[in-house]
């Protein structure tokens, strides 16, 4: 029953787009006593049925760009094999630490920010900087389309 409730809470958070999935792994470890690798496996497997339902909804609303998804999935499938093999060969204690660091980073991002996505529109400069630090992916690339230039502008001032 406790497991079901954990799932329910994580589902609600994910539905709210708060990234509840990230909290599922520590919840399983500390509330149920699941081993690190197994907790991550559960997180992955439990995501699948939830995602199927969500994709159908998004697809009907015309929010799935299939071609783009295909290109990105090509890379992410390779990454998944590499990442999973690496995780499965790491000691549970080491993997737990790696996860912990990621969680701290995500927590800072979540606290300071996912609302940054909205704030970008308001062109609020200082907070976007913190995101650049937490999410290295968002460092500006040299070539950008016009639309992207507008989005990233505040961030590029720092570099």
């Amino acid at each position, binding site marked *: 029953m406790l497991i079901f409730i954990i799932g329910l809470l994580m589902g609600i958070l994910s539905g709210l787009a708060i990234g509840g999935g990230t909290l599922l792994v520590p919840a399983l470890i500390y509330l149920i006593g699941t081993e690190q690798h197994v907790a991550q496996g559960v997180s992955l497997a439990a995501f699948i049925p939830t995602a199927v339902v969500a994709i159908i909804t998004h697809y009907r609303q015309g929010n799935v760009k299939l071609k783009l998804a295909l290109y990105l999935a090509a890379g992410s499938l390779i*990454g998944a094999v590499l990442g999973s093999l690496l995780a499965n060969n790491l000691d549970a204690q080491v993997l737990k630490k790696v996860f912990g660091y990621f969680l701290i980073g995500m927590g800072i991002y979540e606290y300071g920010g996912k609302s940054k996505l909205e704030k970008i529109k308001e062109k609020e400069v200082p907070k976007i900087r913190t995101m650049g630090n937490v999410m290295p992916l*968002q460092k500006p690339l040299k070539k950008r389309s016009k639309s992207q230039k507008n989005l990233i502008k505040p961030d590029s001032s720092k570099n």
Partner: protein
Amino acid sequence: MDNIVKLGAIGIITGIVNGLLGIGGGTILIPAMIFLLGEKQHKAHGTSLAIILPTALVSTLIYKYNNYLDLNLSLKVASGAVIGGYLGAKLMNKLPAKSLKKLFGVFMIVAGLRMVF
């Protein structure tokens, strides 16, 4: 060509995070699509799911192969998560999402610190 490199890099990083940490990867993919590829947020959200689903499937299979998959536990969590996901989406406009984000951000930092130390 430049674009293909960008797409490939975003994809591979998303996949590695997915497999290594067992979490979706949407937290990386969605902002990457918005900021680096200039996609709109709701399109990025929908498209990211279509990328993460097959990615999670591959990762799950590798975890299963290495005996790190507890199917029974996964089913229990998933049954809660499906119902919760529906409730969450329904409640989206009725709950104070901003303060919830801050609250769970703190949860994450605390849980993360406990895992590291």
